[in-house]
């Protein structure tokens, strides 16, 4: 087992959640890595598509945004937003969307719009993009977060993308036909949601941290009673990620430094 960065274990942890055949709605950054590594390792029949309209492109080079010309080559279809975003909710597709956000609450609801209010804004993020659409219509959502108390909050400043709403069966009652967050993958571990209450709990923590640290970085009560330590990245996983998926480390960033 080699050394690895938090970014690397995040990408691999998310990739492990993909089932072969899932139709992957990828953004850029970590989600590109997770989708690509899963396709290369255990989900070869999975297909990546982008909200911009690139359906199953060849992806010889990593796209830096979903509108990168690299998502237009070797595709099954090049279309546009209307077509691509409509695929998200297609009942015959197990669409899995990767999303990030600035804030998350205990039901996996997301804020990627602003801090403060419209009247008194404190910070501005890009906004939903396709995130609200994916969170509303995909079969499942995997969320990437930096695990920080200011991001894991009791109440979102702005509610951009629907998770489990107020928990329980609130999501179905609101009118959504399916979906909801499957997992939250952070730089410290992987959170899932209780079957009945839909509240977040800690499923696994990475070898370099512990549940106490995670609780301290979470702004709402987090059940850690089921938590186990994560299986570290295998040499094969790391090799694929580093040598095939992002050899330029455009998204991976600086490599891990051996502390020894």
């Amino acid at each position, binding site marked *: 087992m080699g050394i690895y960065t938090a970014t690397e274990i995040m990408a691999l942890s998310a990739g492990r959640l993909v089932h072969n055949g899932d139709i992957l709605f990828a953004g*850029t*950054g970590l989600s590109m890595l997770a989708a690509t590594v899963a396709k290369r390792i255990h989900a070869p029949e999975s297909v990546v598509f982008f*909200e*911009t*309209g*690139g359906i199953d492109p060849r992806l*010889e*080079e990593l796209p*830096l*945004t*979903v*509108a*990168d*010309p*690299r*998502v*237009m*080559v070797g595709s099954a279809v*090049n*279309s*546009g*937003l*209307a077509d691509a*975003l*409509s695929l998200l*909710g297609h009942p015959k597709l197990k669409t899995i969307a990767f999303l990030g956000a600035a804030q998350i609450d205990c039901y996996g609801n997301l804020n990627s*719009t*602003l801090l403060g209010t*419209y009247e008194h*804004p*404190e*910070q*501005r*993020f*890009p*906004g*939903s*993009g*396709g*995130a*609200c*659409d994916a969170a*509303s*219509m995909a079969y499942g959502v995997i969320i990437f977060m930096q695990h920080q108390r200011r991001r894991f909050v009791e109440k*979102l400043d*702005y*509610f*951009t*993308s*629907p998770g489990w*709403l107020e928990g329980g069966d*609130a999501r179905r009652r*609101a*009118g*959504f*036909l399916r979906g909801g967050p499957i997992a939250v993958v952070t730089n410290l571990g992987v959170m899932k949601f209780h079957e009945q209450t839909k509240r977040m709990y800690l499923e696994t923590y990475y070898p370099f941290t512990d549940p106490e640290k995670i609780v301290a970085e979470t702004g709402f009560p987090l059940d850690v009673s089921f938590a186990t330590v994560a299986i570290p990245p295998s040499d094969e996983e790391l090799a694929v990620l580093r040598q095939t998926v992002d050899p*330029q480390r*455009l998204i991976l960033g600086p490599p891990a430094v051996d502390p020894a």
Partner: protein
Amino acid sequence: MKLMTAAEAVRTLIKDGDQIALGGFTVNRNPMLMAREMIRQGKRHLYLVVHSHGQALELLVGAGCVQRVEIAYGGVGRFAPTGFRFKKAFLEKKIEVEDYSNLQMTLRFMAGAMGMPFVVTRSGLGTDIVRLSGFSPESRGQGRVPRQKLTLLKDPFDPDGADVVALPPLNPDVALVHAQYVGEAGTCRFCGLTFADIEQAKAAKTVIVTCEEIVPEAYLRREPDRNSLPPFLVDAVVAAPFGAHPTACHQFYDYDPKHMNLFKQIARDDDRFKAYLDEWVYPFDSQEAYLERVGVRDLLEIRANPGWGYAPGLDRR
């Protein structure tokens, strides 16, 4: 269809306060020549309607041309996950912003293009996108601001009458889109992803198309399956080689990482942004003059390899 210069198109077809749809997406096929020309001509109080933008949005907002934005995403991908000028203008309340999702904005353009009275979706149920309005109450129903951002309706076909989100159509005064090819009669062909450009153009009252190449009409009509817009929907065509620079244009050039990183450096700072406008926008009364400033070396570096449609191996750090 009328062939025009960018200056003529902006002067004759775009008024202060117009509602304008920008084509492209974040770093791709932004109508950059038109954005620079609107800045040069000092357009004011523009009302932008966009899904995910983008470099043109950054320039126009930064230069003070914009009063109001309906938007799903304001950023330039890895070069600026949130657009610096967009963020600053929002936080300093220099612009009013109404937030939507990409699908919602696309459906609104589509409804406008198809003459639908409104359009419904389940996307956004229960969220602040549906609950909150970013435009001030006093702006409602004024000028082109819709009386309501959106509304909830009961689905008449659902036995339980579940709520759905009803959105008003968009019919902007002007759509600015950048195409790869326009025929001499005005037929347009977008290559690669079309984003919502076709819907935006069909929804708009006035359509201005900048393009990489003006080609014989017969060339495009040999393969009408690949064409995007008929001449009678196009009001003005502007010849604009590298017209989307520094954003990408599939099959013609990649985004320009050098320029985008330069912009990233200066965009946070008001004075440096002003200096950027002085260096890259105001001096150039033609696209050719602007491209001279960019320089042949950089243009060659980003030119697309026809096997890929982008510049393989380009240093994008």
